[in-house]
């Protein structure tokens, strides 16, 4: 019964009649043991979904802000097994969807099945693995994710062809992570006409799965622009910057500033 509930946490959230705010942070940053506190604070102040970043030495798709947070987290001593220890019992106090976001190599070293099993045990609902391509996922890992009730989230970008978007829509289960522009994380401020057209173009495809926009959302204005045609938006680098400046204090103020 609990397993069934877990499987549906992301689905339930997506069915709510509101625009969703998802926040990314890097586990082990700014302090090694901040993970649980940050998650609890984010939920307490109305965040809908959380992406917990598993730090990696070589985060290819990330800009300087998230790179720096990953380096610090690793220097603080964060590693995969420790993150799972920290998350043990998190479901006693937190009920919003939790997604683990990380690069594939640390998962491969942990053992992908052991990793998925552990995710299930601590109550993780989904995975975002930027460097695990769709075809490899489908061939080698889809069955594992399903067995452990994990929703794997795929990315699309402004360069993704319609045919590929539809392929990804078919392979998706929860939502589609819509990368706002051709960039690494934290690279831009604000959205221009080009992004607006891209958001509208994707909306016009009438995909089966809702889209949540990430990359380039840093404040109330960009959040509003991003969610106009989509189900929600993800903030990463801007929140990391907040943590850098304020530690785990004033998370409420940061969230209030968004929506």
């Amino acid at each position, binding site marked *: 019964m609990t397993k069934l509930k877990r499987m549906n946490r992301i689905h339930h959230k997506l069915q709510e009649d509101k625009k969703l705010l998802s926040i990314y942070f890097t586990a082990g940053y700014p302090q090694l043991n901040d993970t649980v506190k940050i998650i609890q604070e984010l939920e307490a102040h109305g965040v809908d979904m959380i992406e917990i970043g598993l730090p990696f030495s*070589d985060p*290819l798709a990330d800009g300087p802000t998230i790179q720096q947070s990953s380096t610090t987290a690793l220097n603080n001593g964060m590693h995969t097994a420790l993150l799972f220890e920290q998350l043990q019992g998190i479901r006693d106090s937190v009920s919003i969807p939790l997604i683990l976001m990380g690069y594939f*190599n640390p998962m491969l*070293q942990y053992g992908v099945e052991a990793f998925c099993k552990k995710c299930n045990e601590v109550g993780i609902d989904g995975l975002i693995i930027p460097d695990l391509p769709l075809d490899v996922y489908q061939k080698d890992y889809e069955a594992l994710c399903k067995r452990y009730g994990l929703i794997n989230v795929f990315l699309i970008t402004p360069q993704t062809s319609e045919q590929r978007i539809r392929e990804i829509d078919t392979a998706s289960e929860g939502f589609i992570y819509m990368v706002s522009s051709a960039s*690494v994380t934290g690279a831009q401020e604000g959205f221009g006409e080009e992004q607006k057209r891209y958001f509208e173009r994707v909306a016009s495809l009438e995909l089966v799965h809702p889209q949540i926009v990430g990359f380039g959302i840093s404040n109330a204005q960009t959040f509003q622009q991003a969610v106009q045609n989509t189900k929600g938006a993800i903030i990463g680098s801007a929140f990391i910057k907040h943590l850098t400046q304020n530690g785990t204090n004033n998370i409420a103020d940061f969230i209030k500033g968004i929506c």
Partner: protein
Amino acid sequence: MKTYHVDEKGYYGEFGGAFIPEMLYPNTEELRQQYLHIMGETSFQEEFDQLLKDYVGRPTPLYFAGRLSEKYQTKIYLKREDLCHTGAHKVNNTIGQILMAKKLGKNRIIAETGAGQHGVATATVCALMGIKCVVYMGEIDIARQAPNVARMKMLGAEVRPALSGSRTLKDATNEAIRDWINNPVDTHYIIGSVVGPHPYPDMVARFQSVISAEIKTQLLEKEGRENPDYVVACVGGGSNAAGAYYHFLDNADVGIIAVEAAGKGIDSGESAATSALGKIGIIHGSKTLLMQTSDGQITEPYSISAGLDYPGVGPLHAHLYRSGRGEFISITDDEAMNAGLQVSQLEGIIPAIETSHAFAIFEHRKFRPEELVVINLSGRGDKDLDTYIDYFEL
């Protein structure tokens, strides 16, 4: 027939593939769909061959190293890639890829470089073609390879420091990949070795395969046989080795010897011997052997040779190692430096320190007098003079 070449999905055995973020999918997919077709076009081949001949100076000689042969009581030939324009084999690949970039309609080139050899080779072909060039180089490497930085600038390239991570080759590669994510439409990324996502390892190997094609022709002329008993090359990422092995991969009569940098010793904690120290993992979009922590964080290798201190190895070489097709030997800094000095004094050729590692195998491994060994002399030692001077207090 058993083949050691890439399969249609981009794998060498269990290694290879394209583990890339979706942002890079359109670029690598475009390349994957087109590279074989473009390389097969007559006009492409003609232009490539012409530039290799008139601009690079190919074919490079296959030289019988008499005094070295006498010393080690076996027949040693040197494939003189050190005589290529820019001083190393790297330019074979950059010529090929700049022509590829033009065919794909790209008007901006990015590259990564460690010691600066690939950066110089890329800046060179960009100057030749009048295409804008940005080279990423680790901040630490920029400081220790000043002459190559100056060369790239003189050739009109912009050298951007990689400030992230360990600020060396692997981070320069990360920065180049990030640049490609940020500039997906107009930019081609010229990777310098047989690493990265499919189709790069195969494409770069094909451009470098001119090395083994020439070895076959030249050996036939000189010895009346196309195949040596052994072909030896140093391996960092492994592009000169891939080129030297290419046409012998599926011929079991030819022994393949790969020489890695042991640094201060395999167990010293300061090494770049990926086959000995690496575990299977993902680096720069490829599944291969790489040096990493038990938690899957990529570690920083060490070698006195800047061209060999890459934490991974091309997926072809990982497969050659795992399958047993290739014999892997690791050579320490000291062994390499002494071998470099010896070749200089026996043959009048100062090799790049990378190549000096390959020469050191004769102290490790005996060959019979009638056996014919080809060493790929991948680069010349000018760039390494400061290191040689410091080491030998010249």
